């Protein structure tokens, strides 16, 4: 993380840098990122689905100019998938290939004890870094110039895995019995995201800084749409953002996310829409509503919603 010190000089610099890579951040997000960098702490990001939690990590990696290493969590994820694994196949293959060599090594020894004694001089060979398959967590620690480590949807993993994460998050080191302790060459910038399907443990929360991202306000969302969808008119942006915000107030199962707003905006641009009209909205509802039930609920109120959006945007 040391290389990018100038990139974290002030909060404003962070915010601008994020904007340059296409991520419009609220002051709160910029503040938390700035703080996390200076305290060298992981950031736990919570919020509804689709507000750009994962996107934030990607943007951070992009502007820091370091690789993004992503660990997607799921039930049953364990050390061998997250940290490291021995390349069993390679080990076996090498023992087969080196059979002759082994013979020559123990050549001349007549009794078993002496042969084993000789073999002992070589026994670390097969458990050396060459036979180690690093998984995301180890990879992140090994990056010379630092990295952004994204532990995505940590709430989907089991309690055990959460406990295991604690060691890495607090010390940035892991111990491999055969090799020893591996310390981070430069501490990675860690993001954890959660959708709260499961209540995370207190211990994990304590080790992280906490950031809650909610749906952006209209002004901010407009800015996001304008940056991400080049060629869209300001008027249309106003209308569609207003429409989306009304939909979010409806009683539907899955609220449209920011990324879906962008998708919709892109669709409308392709359709050469100048302004929202009911028919076009009806036909493109499925770009941001993914459940049949939600579409039905919204269609019923389509008229008032569109009218309101048009009025609000002028």
């Amino acid at each position: 993380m040391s290389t990018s010190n100038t990139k974290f000089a002030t909060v404003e610099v962070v915010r601008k840098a994020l904007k340059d890579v296409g991520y419009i951040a609220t002051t709160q997000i910029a503040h938390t990122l700035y703080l996390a960098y200076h305290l060298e702490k992981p950031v736990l990001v919570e919020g509804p689905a689709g507000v750009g939690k994962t996107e934030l990590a990607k943007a951070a990696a992009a502007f820091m100019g370091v690789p993004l290493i992503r660990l997607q969590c799921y039930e049953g994820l364990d050390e061998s998938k997250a940290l490291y694994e021995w390349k069993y196949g390679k080990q076996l293959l090498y023992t087969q290939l080196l059979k002759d060599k082994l013979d020559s090594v123990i050549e001349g020894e007549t009794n078993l004890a002496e042969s084993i004694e000789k073999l002992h001089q070589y026994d670390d060979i097969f458990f050396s870094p060459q036979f180690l398959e690093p998984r995301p967590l180890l990879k992140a620690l090994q990056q010379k110039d630092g990295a952004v480590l994204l532990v995505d949807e940590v709430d989907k993993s089991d309690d055990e895995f959460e406990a295991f994460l604690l060691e890495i998050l607090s010390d940035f080191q892991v111990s491999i019995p055969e090799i020893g302790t591996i310390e981070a060459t430069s501490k990675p910038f860690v993001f954890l995201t959660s959708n709260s399907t499961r209540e995370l443990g207190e211990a994990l929360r304590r080790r992280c800084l906490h950031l809650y991202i909610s749906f952006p306000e209209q002004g901010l969302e407009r800015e996001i749409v304008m940056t991400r969808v080049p060629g869209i008119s300001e008027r249309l942006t106003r209308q569609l953002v207003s429409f989306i915000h009304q939909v979010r107030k409806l009683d539907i199962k899955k609220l449209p996310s920011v990324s879906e707003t962008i998708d919709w905006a892109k669709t409308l641009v392709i359709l050469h829409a100048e302004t929202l009209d009911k028919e076009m909205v009806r036909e493109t509802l499925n770009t941001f509503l993914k459940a049949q039930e939600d579409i039905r609920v919204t269609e019923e109120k389509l008229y008032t919603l569109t009218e309101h959006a048009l009025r609000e945007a002028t």
Partner: protein
Amino acid sequence: MDRTLQNFITALRRSGVRISVAETMDALRAAELSGYGDRWMLKDFLSASLAKSMPEKEIFEVCFSRFFSLDYITGEDFLFENENLPPILQGEAPLTQIFISGDVGGLAMALRAAGERADIRSIQSWTQKGLFMQRLFQELGLEGLNRDIRRLAEVGGQDALNQAKALESMRDNLMERVRTLVERQLELYAARRSYELSEGYIKNARLSALDERDLARIHKIIQRMVKHLKDRYSRRPRAARRGNLDFRKTFRKSITYGGLPFDTHWKSKKIDRPEIVVICDVSRSVSNIVRFFLLILYSLNEVISRIRSFVFCTNLVEVSPLFEMHPLHEALAMLRSGAGIPILLGRTDYGGSFLDFKDQYSDCLTKRATVIILGDARNNYSEPHTEALRFISERCKRLIWLNPETPSLWGSGDSEMKKYLPYCNIARECSTLRHLERVVEYLLRVHDR
């Protein structure tokens, strides 16, 4: 350490945000980074390092605005009557001097210093409001000001009277400010001071004596307790589940490696999760405890394989379907109101209820089942039917009796506890959350082998 921050963290803790020492250190470094100049930056920094969940964020918002608005209480909106009053008296009290010269900053400092000296942060309840206001007035030197006003009146003359009037109105204004200050401090430091007491206190308080309004807090504590128990008893590392070497499987696999047992296979141990039968007295004397006990048991459904629950008063009925069909809290509420349960709430009849159980539900008595009876064994002098309890006891793995009364009262009056005792593997007093926790832990631990 930074005093302001320390005070703020105290206020947060008292409002129910759990903050560890490590987090305090983080907040300290965060505050150093931001300084106190930029309010929003400070707020975001502290929020990120102290409030770690949505509910905590909400509390944080409230606390932050309350706490850091205190600094502005004597700010520009404090009205001085006149910009400058001509000095009339000699040797005025310090407060009078501040008023006469219109020194806003001086007043703010005086108020703050007086607050420190009066130790206003130790305020704990509404009843102390008057006391702390008095202390503050004393520390501010209100007496001196009053004396000066009287002296001005004695001097007489238009100027002096005008000045006395002005000073009086400023004094009233100040008193109003002091009252607000004390109230704010009270909100900040004492509003939920009880929260500090809560865990230790509530866990050891007799459940039957707890207030209805403590319920929400009890539920919170129970939730945490359950999480704790779950963590401890559901987290079984794979290694612990590993049993003996599965020789046949290993041998078969070894063919691939030319007869070397390279890939070993292990038998896995079966995990024995407890099967529980709860029989609860729901008469008034124990209803609270029953409720919390069931709440804990049913919340632990991941680590308990099966629960069957029965309630009785004059007769005995099974209520397990209630818990299967409705969400936990609804089921408990239904149980409490007795809606839809064919139970007679007359005289409590232990003997009769045990007979009911023996006749109708003896199928749930297996060698794996632990039977837990919750009740005070006060049988209203009717036949105890110990043979029915004996029947139950002989057919289950274990029989545990939880009695809300202290052991010294067992067997007194109409209590048949002494007669039932020989058939119980364990009989314990159970009147507080702590007791409940211990019982549940015991249940899980015994089965953890």
